[in-house]
């Protein structure tokens, strides 16, 4: 084991963790200040505003409603804990929330599988009335999710923001601190990869 001591660490955090955009500064700052003060109105408002988006994101990536609920709740809890000690979002509150959700999902899969290879059988249920059609859809969803899990975390993230959270290209670009063109390219590569994985499973 290489073991060195007192190596100076960089004064600032990695730049990729600090979104470049300042578009949401004025929107998020009062909200964060209220959260830091544990304002009794700001906290329920935070929950009402972001839970659904976080839940949908996590549910899309995991396919497990219970887990999605836990992860979405954990993201909001971590935000409260972070802002209380002066950490948390520097600019974009929503970007921080979605980034944290992505990390938690990645952690979940690392913990569960080391490398994701299988999918839990518990999938989201639709309201399809016919059981056979429901079963077929569940099977298809399971195939797609297995393929999704073979993508890189970043590719999973972009598809989950687009489909799970229902964000536009521009909104996704803001959340990921990228340009819209970069998101187009990332999304295209993600879909091409997904297609390859689906084909590999069919052969």
């Amino acid at each position, binding site marked *: *084991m290489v*073991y*060195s*001591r*007192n*190596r100076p*660490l*960089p004064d600032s*955090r990695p730049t990729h*963790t600090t979104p470049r955009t300042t578009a949401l500064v004025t929107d998020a700052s009062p909200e964060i200040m209220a959260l830091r003060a*544990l304002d009794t109105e700001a*906290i*329920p408002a*935070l*929950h009402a505003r972001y*839970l659904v988006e976080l*839940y*949908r994101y996590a*549910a*899309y990536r995991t396919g497990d*409603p219970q887990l999605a609920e*836990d992860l979405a*709740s954990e993201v*909001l*809890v*971590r935000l409260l*804990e972070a802002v*209380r*000690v002066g*950490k948390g979002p520097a600019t974009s509150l929503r970007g921080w929330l979605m*980034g944290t959700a992505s*990390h938690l999902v990645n*952690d*979940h899969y*690392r*913990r569960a599988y*080391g*490398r994701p290879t299988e999918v839990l059988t518990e999938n*989201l*249920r*639709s309201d399809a009335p016919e059981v056979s059609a429901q079963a077929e*859809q569940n099977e*298809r*969803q399971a195939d*797609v999710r297995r*393929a*999704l899990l073979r993508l*890189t975390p970043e590719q999973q993230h972009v*598809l989950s923001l687009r*489909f*799970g959270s*229902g964000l536009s*290209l521009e909104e996704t670009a803001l959340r990921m601190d990228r340009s819209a063109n970069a998101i*187009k390219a990332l999304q*295209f590569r993600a*879909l*091409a990869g*997904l*297609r390859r994985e*689906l084909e590999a499973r069919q052969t």
Partner: protein
Amino acid sequence: MNDRLYDAFEVCRLALETGVPLDASVRLYPELADELTAPLEAWQAASLLATGLSDIPAERIQRSRTRLLETAAQLRRTTRRRTIAVRGFSRLALAALSLLLFVVLGWGGLATASAQALPGDSLYRVKRVDENLRLGLSAPSKRSDLETEYSERRSEEVRALLELGREHEIEFTGVVRSQTGEIWDVNGVRVVVGSEAEVDAGLFPGVTVEVEGSTDATGTVLASEIHLAAYTWEGTVEAIGLQAWTVSGRVLTVDRASAIAPGIRLGDRVLVLIDVLSGSAHARSIIYLGPKGPDPEPSPSPTNEWEFEGRVQAIGAQVWIVAGQTLLIVPESELDGTLHVGDAARVKAQTTAQGRVLALKITREDGGNEDAELEGGSDGDSSPEPEDTPESSEGSPPTAGDGGSGEDSSEDPEVQDEDTFTGEVTAISGSTWTIDGRQVVVDQETEIEGDPGVGDTVRVDARLVDGSWWAEKIEKR
């Protein structure tokens, strides 16, 4: 070319979403049809996973909301403990007052002058404001020490008020040492618990409580409220979760602040230091005791704080042995970092209801006896004799780095707060990674390169905060 392809994809995707069949959509760009078909089919497939996502059951929303509000209440309560409530002052007013006092009188001198102030004195508020400012400005790694110091200061103030026979409202936190009818001993303070006092059920000697009440002229605190603040719980790990553990039937919430020994598995025996926050049990630390075994019968004897002197025989991350006594090291343990094996030390310890001995404070004993002779406790009759608990010293998990810490302590008396090391990832549990036997916390600000997983060799830059190592960067090698 690629930009045109991506733009074409967006157009075809929009067409697809408005009901245009896939083959008709790609005919909008016949020259790109081959390249567009596969990703558009993947788009359709990916959209399948969004089916049903909008249906979030109301009970899930409510449950999540309740949890968040409970966390907020917990944080408020923690804040209330940590900081001094300067009632009637806004932050702005407080800042203005602080600045004014600093400029006109010199804050340092004023704070010094207020150091001996007691509740009811004109300078007492200055004293509390000074503490609050110091807490706010302290480094995270020092904050816990300050909180402990100020908590002890509250008890000392109460004792001083009682000696002077002054009447005033007070609140302090301490360990229940004895209960005799309505008379309790809390941190050496005599507390009368009348029938009108609001007291949590099931309190017993050994637990830590918050006391609110008032001093009177007869040298007694008349309690108005007594609430459980902290206690220990020993048992078997029955469930390990991201947000909660179950230990011998007790559900304990955990978070990033919880200090959890690495390598604990289902069925292991653990000792948990529990904070009671908003009525729920929160694990401040979970200490590994050993592999699966029968639940011990709780000792009927009260727990106590006691002191002794002796030679340091072993220094580990979770366990020290002094004068033959095995001491469990907990986050609150105040340790002299200059001590080495063989040094004479003075130990302040606490015995739990299950007979475990926690180290509260270990300091150098100058001119100590050559023999590791034990002394009785400072509190007289109820101080127990130290007893051998070999299972504790043997029970430390091999990955806890006991030897390493001991070695470090002997090699380098300086307290390290930054470190870089390389090793194998042996476990990833939530936000806690075990790397080369060491536990580091990973959060959203940790820079992770190369997507490392269990079994990979990584290089870690870490920083010590509040007794835990936080990973600044993890790089796969």
